[in-house]
């Protein structure tokens, strides 16, 4: 959007308070949603819970195509539609809620850097595993991605998406990587996060920020999604403070809330193996 349009939309957004019927759209929980989309959706849900803004989750098979940017999740607030965590944080800020106001400039830059790290490493690794690892593609991704559609549309859409993701991987230089190298990258990323977190409850002071929401979204999903192998979740389990961090956020923001959020967290795509 141009700067003028953005400013205009921000003005509009600021004018109205957060409504009761705000909705977050994602793909179907049980049959369709994939690891990376689930992680992004959970990150946004965690962020909104941390801001204490009510949101209900609506599952639609065509959520990806409904989104203005083509990525899930997106939120429908009043008559505004905003997709992806970054713009949602901006939108929520325009309405007067923010988690990172208490940070100084240096900390804000650091937060942005770590968020970039998660997006460039963890998210890309998830996409790689889903779409470039042949075993996972055959057994999990293709059946799930095309499940709402009849034959032959399910195959066509899966292949189309796979071709698109592989092209993107080629563009950022990940096409030549092997699975081991990707898992190594994940390990390094987790190490960096673990070091930053240390023994603190959250990444910055004692208050959660959008970085916490993002890290929680990705790590929790990795830990609780059953894939063809456990290697990815094992990499995260190596760092006990990260698993403790996930457990803490789940207990604080998702359990004990209304039934909707609990089902969101509990009924994900696979068995729960983390917290038991």
């Amino acid at each position, binding site marked *: 959007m141009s700067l003028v349009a953005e400013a205009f939309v921000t003005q509009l957004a600021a004018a109205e308070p957060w409504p009761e019927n705000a909705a977050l759209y994602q793909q179907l929980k049980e049959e369709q949603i994939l690891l990376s989309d689930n992680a992004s959706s959970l990150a946004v849900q965690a962020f909104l819970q941390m801001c204490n803004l009510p949101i209900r989750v609506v599952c639609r098979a065509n959520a*990806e*195509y409904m989104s*203005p940017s083509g990525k899930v999740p997106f939120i*429908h607030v009043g008559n505004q539609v905003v997709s992806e965590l970054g713009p949602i944080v901006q939108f929520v800020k325009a309405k007067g809620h923010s988690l990172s106001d208490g940070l100084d400039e240096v900390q804000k830059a650091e937060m942005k850097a770590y968020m970039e790290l998660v997006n460039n490493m963890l998210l890309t690794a998830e996409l790689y595993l889903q779409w470039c690892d042949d075993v996972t593609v055959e057994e999990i991704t293709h059946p799930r991605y095309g499940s709402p559609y*009849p034959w032959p*549309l399910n195959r*066509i859409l899966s292949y189309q998406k796979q071709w698109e993701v592989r092209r993107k991987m080629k563009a950022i230089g990940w096409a030549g990587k092997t699975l081991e190298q990707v898992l190594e990258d994940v390990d390094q990323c987790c190490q960096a996060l673990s070091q930053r977190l240390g023994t603190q409850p959250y990444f910055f002071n004692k208050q959660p920020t959008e970085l916490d929401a993002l890290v929680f979204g990705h790590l929790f999903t990795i830990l609780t999604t059953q894939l063809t192998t456990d290697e990815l979740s094992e990499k995260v389990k190596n760092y006990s403070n990260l698993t403790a961090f996930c457990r803490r956020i789940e207990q604080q923001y998702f359990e004990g809330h209304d039934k909707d959020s609990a089902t969101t967290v509990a009924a994900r795509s696979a068995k729960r193996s983390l917290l038991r």
Partner: protein
Amino acid sequence: MGHIPLKCKQSLEPLPMGGPDFGALGEEAELVEVEPEAKQEILENKDVVVQHVHFDGLGRTKDDIIMYEISDVFKAKNLIDVMRKSHEAREKLLRLGIFRQVEVLIDTCQGDDALPNGLDVTFEVTELRRLTGSYNTMVGNNEGSMVLGLKFPNLFGRAEKVTFQFSYGTKETSYGLSFFKPQPGKFERNFSVNLYKVTGQFPWSSLRETDRGISTEFNFPIWKTSHTLKWEGVWRELGCLARTASFSVREESGHSLKSSLSHAMVIDSRNSSILPRRGALLKINQELAGYTGGDVSFLKEDFEFQLNKQLLWDSVFSASLWGGMLVPIGDKPSSIADRFYLGGPTSVRGFSMYSIGPQSEGDYLGGEAYWAGGLHLYTPLPFRPGRGGFGDLFRTHFFLNAGNLCNLNYGDGPRAHLQKLAEYIRWSYGAGIVLRLGNIARLELNYCFPMGVQSGDRFVFYTNFFSSNWFQRLLHFYLVLSERIAVFNFVYSMPV
């Protein structure tokens, strides 16, 4: 014996009906050479036998399909009959679409087995080339495109045709490939297979649609009606045209697969599809989707009826009625791509294109049931300027249009449905000038008064007619193709 070559070049219309003597026939005939000792005979009532029919110029065309078209010529009993049947055979050969031109030559028989009243008919044909191409540029609603067409007529010798069209535009590209095969001897019975990708932009709904599909259809006549049976499989992709599209339209974005069987029946006795003077048209169409695959399930019915009658002083009265209903099967609601739309210069004049009926935030969602009707009176221009020439292409046009579009609650009975369709009728009346463009389009310039406007409808008449200056009017100026698709829509308003 007299040597009488008769060469009939163009159409024989009007066939010489009266005139028994040879002079009347000779209007299009070439010079008659009569040898001094020959007797001039009155040929019309003389019995003749067609002994041979020759064909000159056949290349790849197979013999059997030609045989069917010309078999009637052998049955002719007298000379006028021979000429008439040859003319009909020529028309039949031309409609196969495989010859560039066909000339008929009727001559007396020569040779050993020639009877005294024997005739030879020779068809001189020129086949179309194996491959013809065309290139056009089109400029439409904010878009320009290059259209390339390729045609392979008479591919295997029995009037099969393959056409390929590719359109490359500034916004979208589309293409179509089609194979057509008629039944030898019965051209009206044919089947075709089409493969296509088309894209459409619908600004009245803020919707963009891309269809990729394959269809096969059979056409066959039964008595005076022509029927079409079609199976179609389409992968539809819907998207929002602008970021400001309403959420109801945004919810419809995505992919769906429609696999449907449809049947259409047409009876058309009009003399022309643009500004007909007499005759009637009845079209009934039904479509059943969902039982041959896909994820869209519905039953759709629609009909169109038109009646034309010529009145005194070269004026024509025309009445038309059309309507339709879409019944979704199962519990999934109907898709915006299947619903009906109403409004605009092709149905209810005075309202913006397809801008009647259910809408959300300014985007028109279409409806599941509709009806529309019109009464038209076409007269020659007042004072008949340019009579006999250019002026005949123009007609004055008085019209009354009405219609309604809504969603029905299928749980209620038919009485409730009729009631719903009868309330909130939109209608309009007005007058204008119509220009006929060949056989494919008409250009209209109208003065309309839309009435019965409901909240949410968009109409093209913004100022209050009765209180404002005569100049502050709105005129419609639009081009309408014979299939009721408006191509060019221009509204001109004159300020006070």
